[in-house]
């Protein structure tokens, strides 16, 4: 524990100059012993949910009991991305990785680290080769990634600003302050070809230039958009939780470049840990003179306030976000005027996504040229995706732009979970679309995804296999959007309700081909006639599934049959000759719909069956079939 409070005496002393900052950084680097073994435990929201807190407790206890606190370091960090393997533990500097650690294993790991050993039986096993892999970087999931942003989560404890500073943190800010040319910063960001990671992919440098060109005077705003409302997406949360200082540094640089003096971080209240870590980080920055008046003794002043949103999807939209920050109802407004002319309280405002901000210090530190080497021509850098659904390795993956979908799914994601073949991925959340398996060589960048009828979006990537019904997918997203539309535009509110109605009819076998045509016609009108991005993209899930999986819709309509066996109204559960009469299914059925003598073939009473699938899930003999 002594290690942790080493700098308590000087902790939070205000840094009055750039030199003072450098001195502190040098001292931290000097005191740091990189050969000292350190146990790194990721404890983001996802890891905590799978038990990381117990590991932390046990590790602390073991280190204390064995008197190892001086010899072995412990770092609690944000999410590293491999959610499938959580709770996991990483040992530095060796890079040894232990997946799915429990309390007993943790005790053994502490022991092993103390003795400088590796526990072979706990190592990660690669499922395709059945090979044991020791080092994190050799695991296929990590190997193909380029983890510019996420790897930094491993290096810092988010509530310790010294961790961040020691790892080159705030160096980019110092570089910018020393150079003293705001225009240079804008040019550098422009040259990096960074495009906004929040969805639309607007060139960040250009946005900043527009803001910088606005007359100064009454003040300008910078906003970090951390509303992240796409179902299944959590990359922004992980960055905020795991490395809040990188966002603060990005915004400070943005403020210097554009002449803005007030920053706002807009976070949804459902992200308590992100809010907590950010508040701690902001306090530390204030105390150390990295935020507020005369930052590091220069004449640059910038402040950041935190605004919590109530978690409406539409509040991620720029103009709705602005109204929400102003304390009004989160409802989009007509653009133009664009926020960059008239934003919060009528003042020029530039809004960027969390991940966009996290990239800024990287660009400044390593230079625009170096940064734009990663990725493709129109889309530079890396993008974090949350890979979820019917895939073996779920988690956050950070990949260079231009990588193919196939590489993400097969190499990083490890392929399908079961025997069922993967048939599509859904990108871009509710605003996005599905891309079928035969187009998986598509390189991932803003333009090619849009051409394929989907969008990059903020980074959700949901994998679907043969057991996923595309009509059901469209229905899911329409259901989500009909609650999340702000409701102002008649065509968005009613149009989505009507699309849901038709898709639901199809899923019940009550659709007709005429109604399918009507669905398509309506979808195109909704796209055309709505005010904000929500309405304009809301039909995408319907249109893209109709485009690539029309035969599934037609099958529902014509033959009243759901090929994936998902749509409840169209399927029946029955028991085939594989049945051994083990009676396990009988106990699982909530409706007592299964009959049969022990050791005799069983039978499902169709009248009583509610199609919950509980019997199929428990049967060990594949005797329950869906048709």
């Amino acid at each position, binding site marked *: 524990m002594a290690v942790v409070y080493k700098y308590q005496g000087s902790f939070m002393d205000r840094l009055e100059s750039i030199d003072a900052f450098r001195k502190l950084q040098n001292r931290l680097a000097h005191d740091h012993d990189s050969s000292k073994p350190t146990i790194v435990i990721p404890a983001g929201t996802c890891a905590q949910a799978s038990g990381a807190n117990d590991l932390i407790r046990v590790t602390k206890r073991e280190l204390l009991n064995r008197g190892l606190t001086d010899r072995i370091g412990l770092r609690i960090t944000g999410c590293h991305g491999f959610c499938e393997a959580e709770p996991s533990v990483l040992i530095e500097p060796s890079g040894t990785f232990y997946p799915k650690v429990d309390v007993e294993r943790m005790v053994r790991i502490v022991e092993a680290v103390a003795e400088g050993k590796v526990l072979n039986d706990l190592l990660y096993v690669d499922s395709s080769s059945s090979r044991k892999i020791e080092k994190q970087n050799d695991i296929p999931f990590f190997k193909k990634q380029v983890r510019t942003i996420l790897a930094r989560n491993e290096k810092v404890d988010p509530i310790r600003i010294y961790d961040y500073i020691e790892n080159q943190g705030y160096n980019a800010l110092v570089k910018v302050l020393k150079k003293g040319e705001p225009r240079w910063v804008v040019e550098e960001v422009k040259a990096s070809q960074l495009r906004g990671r929040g969805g639309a992919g607007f060139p960040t440098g250009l946005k900043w230039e527009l803001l910088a060109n606005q007359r100064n005077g009454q003040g300008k705003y910078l906003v970090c958009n951390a509303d992240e409302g796409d179902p299944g997406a959590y990359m922004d949360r992980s960055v905020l939780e795991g490395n809040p200082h990188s966002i603060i540094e990005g915004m400070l640089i943005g403020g210097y470049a554009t002449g803005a003096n007030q920053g706002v971080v807009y976070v949804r209240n459902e992200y308590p840990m992100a809010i907590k870590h950010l508040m701690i980080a902001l306090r530390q920055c204030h105390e150390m003179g990295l935020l507020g008046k005369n930052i590091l003794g220069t004449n640059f002043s910038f402040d950041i306030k935190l605004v919590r949103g109530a978690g409406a999807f539409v509040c991620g939209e720029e103009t709705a976000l602005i109204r929400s920050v102003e304390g009004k109802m989160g409802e989009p407004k007509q653009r133009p005027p664009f926020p960059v002319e008239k934003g919060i309280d009528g003042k020029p405002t530039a809004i960027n996504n969390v991940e966009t901000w996290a990239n800024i210090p990287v660009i400044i530190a390593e230079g625009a040229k170096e940064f734009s080497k990663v990725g493709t021509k129109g889309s530079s850098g890396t993008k974090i995706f949350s890979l979820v659904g019917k895939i073996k390795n779920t988690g956050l993956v950070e990949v260079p732009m231009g990588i193919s979908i196939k590489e993400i799914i097969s190499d990083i994601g490890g392929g399908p979970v079961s025997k069922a073949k993967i048939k599509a991925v859904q990108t871009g959340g509710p605003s996005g679309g599905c891309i079928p398996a035969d187009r998986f060589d598509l390189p991932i960048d803003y333009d090619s995804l849009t051409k394929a009828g989907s969008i990059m979006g903020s980074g959700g990537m949901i994998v679907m296999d043969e057991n996923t019904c595309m009509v059901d997918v469209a229905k899911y997203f329409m259901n989500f959007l009909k609650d999340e*539309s702000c409701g102002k*535009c*008649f065509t968005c509110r009613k149009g989505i309700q009507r699309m849901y109605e038709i898709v639901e009819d199809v899923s019940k076998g009550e659709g007709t081909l005429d*109604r399918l045509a009507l669905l398509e016609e309506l979808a195109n009108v909704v796209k055309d006639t709505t005010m904000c991005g929500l309405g304009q993209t809301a039909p995408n899930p319907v249109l893209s599934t109709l485009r690539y999986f029309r035969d599934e819709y037609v099958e529902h309509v014509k033959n009243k049959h759901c090929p994936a066996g998902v749509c409840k109204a169209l399927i029946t559960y029955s028991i085939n000759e594989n049945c051994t009469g083990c009676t396990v299914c009988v106990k699982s059925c909530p409706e007592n719909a299964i009959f049969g003598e022990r050791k005799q073939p069983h039978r499902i009473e169709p009248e009583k069956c509610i199609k919950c699938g509980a019997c199929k899930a428990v049967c060990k003999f594949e005797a329950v079939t869906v048709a």
Partner: protein
Amino acid sequence: MITLTINGLEVSVEEGSTLLEAAQFYGFPIPTLCHMEGLTPYGACRLCVVEIGEGPKAKLVSSCTYPAQEGLKVRTASSRVLKARKMILELLLASCPQSKVIQDLASAHQIRQQRFRQEHEDCILCGLCVRMCKEQMVAQAIGFRGRGEKRSIGTPFDIKSEQCRLCGGCIYVCPACQLRCTFTEPDKAICGGCANLSPPCVEKEPFDDMMCYMQPCVACEIKKD
């Protein structure tokens, strides 16, 4: 002054005008529903969409909210606009068939069918009443709440508003149903000008359910005697 092209005609309008104002000034008709002179444009009904821009960048925008911009090319009756307009009217008719305003608009645009499941909604959430109450009556007695399917209009906590001036302005501007408040006794309600066979008030029981925010209702009080 700003110069722009509407349907091929080059016109100039004052800075700060909307596309709707520009088009109306030069005599190009655009149907509207949630727009009313004297109230801030809101852009809720989308009926007033026009097409702007060219080539792949062409798009539809609501003319009542979109500002006139230098050099803009506007089409108020392109096939894309007409198609959208018809669909919007069809949707309106499907949700609120009892409204005389909607019936007239639909008829004027040759809407002969309605392919969605029939609904009878009291309100199309055009927001005219809210703006009327706030901007002309300076009362702010009613407002929007909720989002998506749950969006609705009412007084805070749905209790009688201290702010309400009992002016009836909200009812006067409502396009969804001008008949909701013909009388206190449903069976005596007389149908106004339109051919509604079943005025919605008649079906309403009890009276509190009506989209009438006044307690007591001025119109009803007068008609009672």
